[in-house]
C-alpha cells in the first residue's frame, strides 16, 4: 500500500519538475544539468591529462584524443559554464529586482529543455559511432571532411542548446526592463543583475550568427550545400568569421556574470558598499560593446592583412581598460573593509590575481606580431584556461557556496568548502601556469602525444598532477553538497548575516511567489539600507497585501524540445536510412503541433488568494 503511494509521489514529483515554470526551480534544473555536464567535461579533461602525463603514451589513440578535446571544450563552454550561470541568473536575478518570476515563464522552461536535449543529443555521439573531433571551434576545413556523424552531433546538438540560450537571453532582458520593483531604477540594480542584463544583450546579438553558422555546417554535411567547400566556390574562412563573431562575445557572456557574482560577494564580506558602482556599470557596458569588435584577433594568422590585424589588435587591448577599472574597484571595495574570509570570499580574493594573469597574457596575444609566435601553442591553452577557470569557474564555485542557502535552503559546510577551495586553487595554478612555459618551449596544442627528450616531460607531469588536485577539490564539493542535502538544516532569510540585496529579504528557499508583497526599493543595496535603519527584515512593502497572479505549469516546453531532438536524429540519418526523412518530418510536426496547442489554448494563469499568503507569512514568521 505504502509503496504504491510512494510511487505515485515520485511520479507527481517528476511531473512537477518536468512541467515547472517557476524560475527558482528552473534555476535549480539549470544548475544540476550544468553540474552534470561539468563533471562529464571534467572526466574528459582528466583523460586528456592522463594521456599527456608521459611522452609517447599509447593509452588513448589519436582519434579518441581529438574527440576528447573537442567534447571537453564544447561541453565545458556550452553545457557546463553557461547553464550553471543561467541557473544562478534564473534563481537569483528575479529576486534581486523584486520580481515574481521572469517575464516569460513558459519560454524559460522551453529554454531549459532545449539546452538539456541539446546536451544529451551531443553526448549521445559517444555511443553512436564517435564524438565530434574537429575541435570546439569546428573549423570547416576539418569539419566538412570529418567521417562519421560526430560533427553532425555537434552542429545539431549545439543548434538546439543555442536556441534555448537565445530564448533565455531575451527572457532575462524583458524581465529586467519591465519587471523591476518600484524604486529599482537601473542605477540601483545589483551588479549581478546588471551583468545578467549585459550578458543577455550579448546573447541576443551573438547567438544568431552561431545559429546561421551551424545551419551552414549542417547543410554542407547533410543536405549537399557548398558553403565551405572551395572546390565548389565555397570559402572556409566564412565559418571562422561567423564562429568568432559569435565566439568572442561568448567569452564575455561567460565572464560578465562571473564579474557580477564577485561584485556581490566583495561588498557582502567586506561590509562595504561596492566601490565605484557607476564605473562598474559603465565598465560592464563597455566590455559588452567592445566584445563584439575584436573577433578577428582569433584569426591573426589567417592572413587578413596587417591593417585588419592592427585594428583588431588595438580594439583587443582596449578591453583591458574597463577590465582594469573593475579590478581596481574590487580591490578598493576590500580596502578598509571589515573582511570575513568565508568560502565565497576566498574564491573572490583568489580570483583577482588569477584572472589578472589571464588578462595579461590576453593582452600579449592581442599584439598581432607576438601572436604569430604564440599561435597554436600551449601558451594559448594556458591563457584561456586562466580566464575561463580563473575567472568563470572560480566565479561559479564562489556563487555555488554563496547562493546555495538561497537556492536549496541549507548551508554548504564551510570547512569542506575551504578544503575544496585549496585543492582547486592550487591544482588550477599547478596545471596551467606551467603550460605557459610549455608553449614557449614549443609544444603545440591539440597534440595527442609528444616525443621524449624535448624537455617537456616534467612540465606535463606537473600539469597532470595539478589536474588531479582540481578533481579532488570537485569531489570534495560533491560530497559536501550531498552531506548538507541529507542533513538539510534550514537557514534563515540571510544566513551570511550581511546580505545587501533583495534576495536576502525573503525565505531560503523563497516561497513560490517570491515575496508576499512587492518590495519597495529605496536605494542601492536596499536590504542593507533597511537594516541600518532598524528594519531587521530588510524589507519594506510597496503595495498592500493582495492576491498574486501566477502562471500555470506546462509540459509543452518539454514536448516541443523533444520533437526537435528526434527531428535531429532524422536529419542526421536521412541519407543512409529509410526512416531518417520520416523521422525528421515527424519530429518537426510534433514540435509544430505542440506550438499550436500552446498558441490556441488560453493560459491566463491563476491567483494565489490573499488568505493563503497570510497563512504562509504566519507559519514562516515573515514580514508584517
Amino acid at each position: 500500500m505504502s509503496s504504491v503511494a510512494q510511487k505515485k509521489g515520485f511520479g507527481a514529483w517528476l511531473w512537477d519538475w518536468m512541467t515547472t515554470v517557476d524560475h527558482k526551480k528552473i534555476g535549480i534544473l539549470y544548475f544540476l544539468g550544468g553540474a552534470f555536464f561539468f563533471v562529464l567535461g571534467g572526466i574528459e579533461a582528466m583523460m586528456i591529462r592522463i594521456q599527456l602525463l608521459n611522452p609517447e603514451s599509447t593509452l588513448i589513440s589519436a582519434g579518441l584524443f581529438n574527440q576528447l578535446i573537442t567534447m571537453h571544450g564544447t561541453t565545458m563552454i556550452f553545457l557546463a559554464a553557461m547553464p550553471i550561470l543561467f541557473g544562478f541568473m534564473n534563481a537569483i536575478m528575479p529576486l534581486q529586482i523584486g520580481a515574481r518570476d521572469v517575464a516569460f515563464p513558459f519560454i524559460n522552461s522551453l529554454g531549459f529543455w532545449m539546452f538539456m536535449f541539446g546536451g544529451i543529443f551531443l553526448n549521445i555521439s559517444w555511443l553512436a559511432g564517435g564524438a565530434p573531433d574537429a575541435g570546439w571551434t569546428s573549423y570547416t576545413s576539418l569539419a566538412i571532411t570529418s567521417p562519421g556523424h560526430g560533427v553532425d552531433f555537434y552542429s545539431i546538438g549545439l543548434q538546439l542548446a543555442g536556441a534555448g540560450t537565445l530564448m533565455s537571453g531575451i527572457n532575462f532582458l524583458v524581465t529586467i526592463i519591465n519587471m523591476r520593483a518600484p524604486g529599482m531604477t537601473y542605477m540601483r540594480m545589483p551588479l549581478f543583475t546588471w551583468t545578467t542584463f549585459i550578458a543577455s544583450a550579448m546573447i541576443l546579438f551573438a547567438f544568431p550568427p552561431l545559429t546561421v553558422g551551424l545551419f551552414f555546417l549542417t547543410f554542407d554535411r547533410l543536405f549537399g550545400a557548398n558553403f565551405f567547400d572551395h572546390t565548389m566556390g565555397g570559402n572556409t574562412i566564412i565559418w571562422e568569421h561567423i564562429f568568432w563573431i559569435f565566439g568572442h562575445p561568448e567569452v564575455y557572456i561567460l565572464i560578465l556574470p562571473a564579474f557580477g557574482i564577485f561584485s556581490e560577494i566583495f561588498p557582502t564580506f567586506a561590509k562595504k558598499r561596492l566601490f565605484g558602482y557607476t564605473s562598474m556599470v559603465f565598465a560592464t557596458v563597455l566590455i559588452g560593446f567592445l566584445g563584439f569588435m575584436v573577433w578577428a584577433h582569433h584569426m591573426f594568422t589567417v592572413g587578413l592583412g596587417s591593417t585588419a590585424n592592427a585594428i583588431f589588435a588595438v580594439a583587443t587591448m582596449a578591453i583591458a581598460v574597463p577590465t582594469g577599472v573593475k579590478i581596481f574597484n574590487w580591490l578598493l571595495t576590500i580596502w578598509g573593509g571589515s573582511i570575513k574570509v568565508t568560502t565565497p570570499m576566498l574564491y573572490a580574493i583568489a580570483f583577482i590575481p588569477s584572472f589578472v594573469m589571464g588578462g595579461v597574457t590576453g593582452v600579449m596575444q592581442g599584439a598581432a606580431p607576438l601572436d604569430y609566435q604564440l599561435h597554436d601553442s600551449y601558451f594559448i591553452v594556458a591563457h584561456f584556461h586562466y580566464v575561463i577557470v580563473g575567472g568563470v569557474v572560480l566565479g561559479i564555485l564562489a556563487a555555488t557556496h554563496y547562493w546555495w542557502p538561497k537556492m536549496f535552503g541549507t548551508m554548504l559546510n564551510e570547512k569542506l568548502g575551504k578544503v575544496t577551495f585549496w585543492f582547486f586553487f592550487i591544482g588550477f595554478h599547478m596545471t596551467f601556469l606551467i603550460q605557459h612555459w610549455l608553449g614557449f618551449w614549443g609544444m603545440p596544442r591539440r597534440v595527442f602525444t609528444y616525443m621524449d627528450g624535448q624537455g617537456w616531460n616534467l612540465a606535463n607531469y606537473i600539469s597532470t598532477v595539478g589536474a588531479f588536485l582540481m578533481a579532488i577539490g570537485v569531489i570534495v564539493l560533491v560530497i559536501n553538497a550531498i552531506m548538507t542535502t541529507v542533513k538539510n538544516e534550514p537557514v534563515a532569510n540571510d544566513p551570511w548575516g550581511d546580505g545587501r540585496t533583495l534576495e536576502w529579504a525573503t525565505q531560503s528557499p523563497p516561497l513560490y511567489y517570491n515575496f508576499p508583497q512587492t518590495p519597495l526599493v529605496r536605494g542601492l543595496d536596499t536590504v542593507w539600507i533597511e537594516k541600518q535603519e532598524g528594519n531587521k527584515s530588510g524589507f519594506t512593502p510597496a503595495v498592500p497585501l493582495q492576491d498574486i497572479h501566477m502562471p500555470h505549469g506546462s509540459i509543452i516546453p518539454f514536448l516541443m524540445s523533444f520533437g526537435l531532438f528526434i527531428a535531429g536524429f532524422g536529419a542526421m540519418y536521412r541519407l543512409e536510412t529509410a526512416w531518417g526523412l520520416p523521422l525528421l518530418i515527424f519530429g518537426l510536426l510534433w514540435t509544430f503541433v505542440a506550438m499550436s496547442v500552446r498558441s490556441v489554448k488560453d493560459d491566463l494563469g491563476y491567483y494565489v488568494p490573499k488568505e493563503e499568503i497570510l497563512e504562509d507569512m504566519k507559519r514562516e514568521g515573515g514580514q508584517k
Partner: protein
Amino acid sequence: MDLNQKFTPETWPEKPELATFEGKNKFVGFWLFLGGEVILFATLFATYLALKNKGPEGLEFTTQGLFELPLVFVMTMLLLTSSLTSVYAMYHLRNFNFRKMQLWLGFTAFLGLGFLMLEVYEFVHYVGLGFTYGNSAFSSAFYTLVGTHGFHVAIGLVWITLLIFRNAKRGLNLYNASKYYTFSLYWHFIDVVWVFIFTAVYLMGVVG
C-alpha cells in the same frame, strides 16, 4: 485579466496591445527577438554577398542569367501590399472593429500566400533548369537566404491563420489583442527583409 470583460469602442484602450502586463512583456520581448532576427539575416546576407556567383570552374548559372525581374516585381508588390493591409487591420484593432480587422488580416494572409506560391514556383523553375541547392556555393547561399525568408513567410501564414480561426467566434479582448499586434510586427519585419533581398539579391544581381 478577465476574458469576459466586455468592451465598446469607447471603453477599448487606445493601445490595447500594451494594456496588460503580459502584453507589455510581449511587446518588448518581440522587438528584442526581431533585433536578433536582424543579426540572423545580416549573417545570411553577408554570406550571400561573399559567395555570390561563386562556383566550380565554368559556373553555368549566375545572377545575370538566372533572375527575372518581372516575377520578382510581382512578388514584391504582393508582399508590400500585404504589409499595407496588415496596417489597416491594426487600425481596426485599435478601433475595436473585430470584423474588419479579421477581414484585412484575411487579405494579408491571402497576399502572403500568393507571394509564397510565386516563390515556390521560382525555386521549382530554377531547380528545373539545373540550378539545384548543391549546384555551387552561390546556389547554396541563394536558396538559404531567400529560403529562410520564405520559411518566415510560411510561419507567419500559419500563425495568422491560427489566430484568425481561434478568435473568430469570441472577438477581440485584451488577451488576443497583443497576439494580433505581435503578428503585425512580425509581418512588417519580413516585409523589410524582403526589401533588402529584392535589392541585394535581385536588383544588384541583374543590374549591378
